[in-house]
């Protein structure tokens, strides 16, 4: 973590605090996360349902609403020399921040694009104020941007439903990048897309990122997307960051049993060896297990794991893991006949 990082998250805790008919529930969706994202890098966040990743990006995007609130910790962005902390900003300042410096690519393109307005109108709605250009200058800028994304400017006159899913997602990426923000949050950008279109859209996203030099936080549960897109990956489980490191390292020498299982359970074409499956189910964030939250499903669990929360410690070059037995973790599919032993 150094002064040059685009995003710095320190000991962040964000919970949902709810009260219904006398029953109080505290859902610990983000429970003490410390990480940072460098400039010009794609940081992948991998996690399944109830891992807390959706809540985490809501906090990052400063899009929190009650009953979600930050209980402790902070989130800091560094843009153009200044340090910005979204949660302490007023709404007008946030509006200035959004889209110009920080933008968001959402999961369903149809939920971003207003179905009864043409694409041109969506651009005006989102980008006109942040860009601060008028009339012809604005029009030229968005057309130029669309051409960069391999879209014809004719797309501007169409309605969203007239475009294919892939084109719509490219328009969504265009909307998010037209103001050249320093930081982009991409939430499952290709989940609903066909496999051919997905590759195309991801390739485009990466080209745009490299060209602008911005940082992207890419959130998806699909590990194969991370394998091909992310420079570094952070694995979230039950509200905590359990492992973080360069992509290649995590896939070849994971140091957390959960990561090892995630990586090993992906089937590959050309390989019919039996893939291991994890027992149990992801824990409820309202009532998580004590100690290390993965211990009920972990093949390496020892008594210490049930009582003490393992801290996220450095286990290699830029590689952190939160496991008491990180040194004992071996890749599961390197030798299928040699499963990880307790």
């Amino acid at each position: 973590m150094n002064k040059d990082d685009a995003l710095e998250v320190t000991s962040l805790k964000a919970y949902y605090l709810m009260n219904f008919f006398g029953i109080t529930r505290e859902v610990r969706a983000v429970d003490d996360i410390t990480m940072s994202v460098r400039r010009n890098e794609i940081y992948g966040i991998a996690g399944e349902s109830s891992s807390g990743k959706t809540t985490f990006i809501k906090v990052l995007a400063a899009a929190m609403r009650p009953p979600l609130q930050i209980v402790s910790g902070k989130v800091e962005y560094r843009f153009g020399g200044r340090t910005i902390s979204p949660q302490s900003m007023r709404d007008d300042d946030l509006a200035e921040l959004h889209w110009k410096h920080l933008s968001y690519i959402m999961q369903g393109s149809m939920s971003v694009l207003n179905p009864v307005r043409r694409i041109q109108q969506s651009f005006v709605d989102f980008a006109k104020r942040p860009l601060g250009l008028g009339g012809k200058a604005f029009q030229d800028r968005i057309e130029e941007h669309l051409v960069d994304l391999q879209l014809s400017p004719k797309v501007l006159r169409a309605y969203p439903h007239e475009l294919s899913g892939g084109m719509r997602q490219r328009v969504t990426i265009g909307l998010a990048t037209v103001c050249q923000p320093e930081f982009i949050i991409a939430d499952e950008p290709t989940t609903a897309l066909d496999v051919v279109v997905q590759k195309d859209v991801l390739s485009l996203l990466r080209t745009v990122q490299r060209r602008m030099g911005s940082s992207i936080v890419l959130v998806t549960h699909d590990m194969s997307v991370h394998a091909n897109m992310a420079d570094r990956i952070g694995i979230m489980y039950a509200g905590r960051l359990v492992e973080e490191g360069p992509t290649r390292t995590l896939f070849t020498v994971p140091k957390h049993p959960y990561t090892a299982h995630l990586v090993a359970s992906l089937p590959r074409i050309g390989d019919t060896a039996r893939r291991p499956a994890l027992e149990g189910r992801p824990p409820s964030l309202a009532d998580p297990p004590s100690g290390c939250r993965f211990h009920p499903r972990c093949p390496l669990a020892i008594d210490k794991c049930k009582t003490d929360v393992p801290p996220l410690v450095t286990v290699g070059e830029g590689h952190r893991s939160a496991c008491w037995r990180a040194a004992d973790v071996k890749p599961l599919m390197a030798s299928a006949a040699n499963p990880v032993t307790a």
Partner: protein
Amino acid sequence: MFSVLRDLIRYNIEFAIGLAMTCFIIAFAALSFFSPVDPTLVYTAIPDRPPSWQHWFGTNSRGQELFWLLTFAFRNTLTFGITVAVLSRIISIVVGLAAGYIGGWVDRVLMFFNDIFVAIPIFPILILFYFVLRSDLNSFTLALIMACFGWPFDARLIRSVALGLRHREFTRQALFAGMSPLKVMFQEHLPYVMPIIFATAMANMIWSIGLEVTLAVLGFTNLSIPTVGTTLYWANNHSAMIVGVWWWILIPVALIIVMFVGLFLLAVSLNEYIDPRSRLRRMGA
């Protein structure tokens, strides 16, 4: 059941107040079973006496004691309202679920009739019935007629919920699990429709009682049966406000307001409680 009631009373202030008000009115109406006077008789007491310890609500110009008269009036009115609500709920559920779930020509035919009933103006028809039936128009007949008019709007609401449910995956799953369409409609889909039924039942009661009062005040119902409407009719007839017998009008109106507000609060709070989305949230989903 009781824990549910207790939770609602403790945490939902609207429910508590609504329940209190409605129970008060029901208790008041139930007192009619213990009445020492026959409400159809007139000049049994000294007329035009203001409220006092002897006559709690005073007496009216027809020489009837207002307290016991009103207990009967509210009993009849409440029974009438509940009858209309129940009958029209049954019709609207059957029509709404069938039209929404079965679709096709069944839907078209049912909605055709639905729209006809929506378009027919109720008030002239009710007056017509009065002129045809005259003194044969007792409470139950009137309730029957109004039930036949009270279902169309709600049937459409229920139909739209049923239409949405038809395409959900668990409906297909239920069919492959061997459930007949009838079972699917009444066991799988009905819980989703309950909030509408409750809310509209209360609205329906308020509507039917209001209509009955209007008819009675204008003199278009059987005036010898004591209901809230006929009480107000007679009060009007004897120019109660001008003569100074204010308790004849004010007390029934005050009680009616308590009843309507109580029913409304109950409907609103129960609705929030029964709604599938809030139920799911409470279950912990």
